[in-house]
């Protein structure tokens, strides 16, 4: 059995922290500049065709309810499950 108190992990912690710091400082230069997304093909498609295809002026609404309708269905069912579980926990009448 190795006595844990004998081995001090302080040196190991400091070295791992320094390695993490160097790694993250290099990652900063890899991030692409703010406001310039790399892939704009899908955005251009939505901006050009959303009004004509769905007939709604609000492009966000047309994406949420038409192009990505399945995600909205999941969102609504998540809220439904939350309400159902809360009414299961708190629904019974309080004993007074």
């Amino acid at each position, binding site marked *: 059995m190795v006595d844990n108190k004998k081995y001090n992990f302080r040196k190991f912690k400091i070295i791992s922290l320094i390695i993490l710091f160097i790694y993250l400082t290099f990652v900063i230069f890899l991030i692409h500049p703010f406001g310039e997304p790399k892939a704009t093909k899908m955005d251009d498609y939505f901006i*050009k065709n959303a*009004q*004509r*295809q*769905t*007939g*709604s*002026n*609000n492009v*966000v*609404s*047309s994406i*949420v*309810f*038409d192009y990505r*309708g*399945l995600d*909205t*269905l999941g*969102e*609504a*069912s998540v*809220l*439904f499950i*939350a*309400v159902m579980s*809360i*009414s299961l926990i*708190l*629904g019974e009448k*309080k004993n007074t």
Partner: protein
Amino acid sequence: MSKIIKIISLIILNPIIIFGLYVIVHGHLTPGGGFQGGAIIAGATALILVVFENNIKLSRGLFSLFEFLGLTSFILMAFWGIVKNTFFYNFLTNSNGILGKTIVFGINQGYLNSGGVIPLMNLSVGIEVASGLSLIIILITRNL
């Protein structure tokens, strides 16, 4: 709460609910939609519960019925697209009938009679979110 707060909240309650309905109905023209408008209407329920503490009883059955109706109408509208083309197919748009006005690309005046199935889905999601959040607030405040 005091009498001043009660009267002021009664005055301000109608504009809150009407603004929530406006955000829901104009979801395909202006920023907002079903979730946001439903949250505004749930805020009105929270105001009622805070101001009229124990003097008012809101029925839970009506809210749960409305939530059920909202989610089922949303799912039925999604499945009705299978009859026409695919799941979540927008079968009403560009049909020049009800909710099917064709709009031009770019800046135009907003037509309420456009968007196909999107306003109906906004309405159902708005009803569902409003009644669901109201139900959560009622259940939590009742057991305090």
